[in-house]
C-alpha cells in the first residue's frame, strides 16, 4: 500500500474513454485512481505507490501483455487484473496476470476483484513477517533446550506474535478460491516462466 496514504492506488488502463469514466466513478470513493488511455501512457504513470492495475488486454499500440511485462519488472508487488472480451481459464494466471475480468465489467465484480487483489498483497506482507519470525524462532529452538526457552521472554513474545500473525493470515483471505491459489503460487515462483507466455490467447 502507498505510504502515508490510507487509500490504495488503482491505475486504470483502457483505450475507451467512456469505460475509463465509468470505472473511475465506481472506484473513486474508495481508491486513489490514476488513468491511462494506452500502454505507453500507463508506463509513464507507473510508480511504486500503485497497488493494483486494471489492464485492458487489447489496445491499439502497446499490447496489454507488453505492459504487464514492464509492470512486473518495475513493481513486482503490484497486482494486475486483465480485462478481456473472452472468458479465459486458469491459463491466464500462468501468463502472469493476477486475475481477470470479462467485459462488460460490472460494478460489484470490479470492486470485489480489486478488494481480493489487495487482500492477496496483505497476505503476502503478513506471510513475509511470519517467515522472518518463524525462522528466528526455529533458530532459537535449535540452539537452546526446551525448558530454557519456556522461561525466555524473547521466545515467549515471539510465540505470541507468531500466533497473532497466523490468526491474521487465516482471516485475510477467507473466501480464497482456486484462482487465488494458483495466482499466489505463481507469484511465489516469481514469474520465472514469463518467457513462455502464449501470444495468441484471444
Amino acid at each position, binding site marked *: 500500500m502507498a505510504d502515508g496514504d490510507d487509500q490504495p492506488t488503482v491505475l486504470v488502463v483502457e483505450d475507451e474513454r467512456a469505460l475509463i469514466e465509468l470505472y473511475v466513478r465506481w472506484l473513486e470513493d474508495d481508491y486513489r485512481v490514476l488513468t491511462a488511455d494506452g500502454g505507453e501512457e500507463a508506463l509513464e504513470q507507473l510508480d511504486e505507490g500503485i497497488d493494483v492495475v486494471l489492464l485492458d488486454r487489447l489496445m491499439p499500440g502497446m499490447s496489454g501483455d507488453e505492459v504487464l511485462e514492464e509492470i512486473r519488472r518495475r513493481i513486482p508487488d503490484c497486482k494486475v487484473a486483465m480485462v478481456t472480451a473472452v472468458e479465459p481459464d486458469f491459463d491466464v494466471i500462468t501468463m502472469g496476470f493476477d486475475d481477470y475480468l470479462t467485459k462488460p465489467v460490472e460494478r460489484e465484480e470490479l470492486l470485489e476483484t480489486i478488494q481480493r487483489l489487495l487482500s492477496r498483497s496483505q497476505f503476502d506482507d503478513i506471510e513475509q513477517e511470519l517467515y522472518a519470525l518463524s*525462522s528466528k524462532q526455529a533458530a532459537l529452538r535449535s540452539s537452546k533446550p526446551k525448558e530454557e526457552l519456556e522461561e525466555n521472554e524473547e521466545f515467549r513474545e515471539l510465540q505470541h506474535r507468531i500466533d497473532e500473525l497466523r490468526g491474521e493470515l487465516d482471516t485475510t483471505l477467507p473466501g480464497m478460491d482456486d*484462482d487465488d*491459489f494458483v495466482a499466489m*503460487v505463481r507469484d511465489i515462483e516469481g514469474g520465472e516462466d514469463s518467457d513462455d507466455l502464449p501470444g495468441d490467447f484471444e
Partner: protein
Amino acid sequence: MSYRVDSFGDVTSFDDGVSLLMSGTSTETNQRLLDAVTPKADERSVVITTNTGAATVLKELERRGADREQIGIIDCTNADSEIEDVPVRTLSSPGDLTGISLEFAKLFDRDMDDESVRARVGFASVSTALMYTELRTMFRFLHVFTARIRSGGMFGTFALDPTMHEEKAHNTIRAVFDCEADVDEDGISVSGTGFE
C-alpha cells in the same frame, strides 16, 4: 463437520480446514498419510505424490476402501501412469509448484462449484519437494496451500522426513501447520490444535 480418522493414536477426527504436518521417515509416513487421506463416504481425496507412483497410491487407497471416483492423483514422480477411471495428472518435477496448484485446481474444477464437497488432501512429501525448491519458497507455498485448504473446509496432511533436513528447516516448516503428528514404529502422537 469434521474428518474422521481410524487408527490414528488417540485422535478420532480432524476439524474442517485443518492442515497436519506428519513427521517421520518416509516408510512410516507414506502408510499413515494414506490412512489419513482415505476418503469416507461423500468425500473426495486428492493425493500429490513425489515419491510413490500413481498406480501404487491408487492401489493402497482402494485397499483401504476408497472408490475410484473419489480419487484424484497428481503424480510428480515423472513416471508414466496409465490408470483408467481415475483422474491422474502428471508433472515432470516435484519442484513445479505452479503446476501442482494448477492441476489441483483443475481436479476440483469439475465439482468444486458445489461448495459442500468435502475433500482430503495429501502431500507426500514436502521433503522430496524441498530438494527442488528453496526453503523460503516452500514455506510460502505451504502457507498458501494450507490457506486454500482452510477456505475450502478441506483436511490436509503433509509428510516430512525430519532426518532429511536441518533441524532449523523442520522447525520453520512446523510454524505453518495447525498440528503435527510424530510417526515412528511405536505409533503416532499428535500435538497442536484442530483435532479431537
